[in-house]
């Protein structure tokens, strides 16, 4: 990318705030950005995993859902929901093994991309980047660990409560009304939330309605916020009696 473009500065600002590029020297970041190209994907576009074998994509604006679909049943599960600053399918930086996944743009999204081999070279040549890459990779692995653990050990209500809690915006100043904002999932449809917890829309909708009636969540103009964080935390704690009682609904 050329340096003088407004978009270039925007990309730098976004990347500086991410785990992957935080703290990197300006000249190194400039060198890396010079290799990138600008990409946009329109909302709803679905891409197969082969595209990620060719180029490494970094999300600049918007959200991207990474999912796996059973072609025989049509059932799907969301493996991750990526936001600005996230790398797409980072595991392909480690090896060339093809793997099944589908990427779906939830919004009109902006990305920057680089040939996959150039991105792999960064890991080899730049220990500064590597120092960021490994913790980032660890974070992604922990998220998958959380997903698999939730699916195996908890019921849908607990999984949904844990999902929402994981997306409460950190360091977000609580509003006057005492509501906590959510990052990435604040305006998702029930269907999308269901894919994230391995359930179906009807079940997720029932739990969300129950929490809204109880005053745990507040929804206004498709925008959900948490109003009772501690109560939601209790629902996320499977052993809590209130959680068990609520589970009977």
């Amino acid at each position: 990318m050329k340096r003088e473009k407004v978009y270039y500065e925007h990309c730098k600002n976004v990347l500086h705030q991410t785990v992957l590029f935080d703290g990197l020297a300006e000249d190194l970041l400039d060198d890396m950005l010079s290799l990138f190209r600008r990409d946009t994907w329109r909302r709803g576009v679905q891409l197969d995993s082969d595209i990620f074998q060719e180029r490494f994509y970094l999300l600049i604006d918007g959200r991207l859902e990474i999912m796996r679909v059973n072609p025989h049943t049509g059932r799907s599960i969301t493996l991750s929901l990526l936001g600005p600053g996230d790398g797409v399918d980072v595991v392909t930086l480690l090896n060339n093994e093809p793997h099944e996944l589908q990427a779906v743009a939830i919004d009109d999204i902006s990305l920057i991309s680089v040939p996959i081999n150039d991105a792999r070279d960064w890991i080899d040549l730049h220990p500064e980047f590597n120092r960021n890459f490994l913790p980032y990779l660890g974070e992604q692995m922990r998220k998958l660990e959380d997903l698999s653990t939730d699916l195996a050990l908890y019921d849908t209500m607990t999984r949904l409560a844990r999902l929402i809690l994981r997306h409460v915006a950190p360091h977000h100043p609580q509003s006057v009304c005492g509501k906590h904002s959510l990052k990435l999932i604040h305006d998702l449809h029930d269907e999308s939330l269901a894919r994230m917890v391995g359930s179906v829309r009807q079940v997720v909708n029932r739990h969300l309605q129950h929490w809204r009636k109880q005053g745990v969540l507040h929804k206004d103009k498709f925008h959900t916020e948490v109003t009772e964080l501690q109560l939601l935390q209790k629902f996320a704690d499977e052993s809590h009696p209130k959680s068990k009682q609520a589970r009977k609904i």
Partner: protein
Amino acid sequence: MSEKNTCVSIYSSHQSAEQALGELRVEGLDVQQISIVGKGYQNEEHPVGFYTTGEHIYYQGVQTAFWSNLQKLLSSASFFWLPGFGTLATAGFIVRLLVEGQESIEVGGGFNVLGKSLFSMGIPRDSIVDYEQAIKAGKILLIVHGMRSDVERAYHILHSKTQQVAVHMA
């Protein structure tokens, strides 16, 4: 995957746009997938526009050779005056989009026929605004539109350390 994939390269001069177009042709890219968009006007005192004297359409203005050649190479060309935008000269695939099916394109945000055409090629709203500003500033857009493989191929031909090329998928 739909065919609403586009790669856009911006040039400061018609010479560099012409050279890039030549490279695409040499590499065998289908010219039916290529469009050129520019202002076609540079504060001239002379008449500006397209005219015909029989079989061929000719461009009248400072960039006469450039736009007349494009009309021959890319089969079609147009010259419009858009309210709030000014003059717009185009050649290639985009001409058909500018004059057909505009009613069915729902882009919103008060976009003109150019914005609607770019949107229908898979270019998002933010980028349309950027491209419109580039054209107003006298720059020339070279657009390749088609399957992802064609667009990626065009990108590899066009991009360089000094030439910025963006890829849009929809």
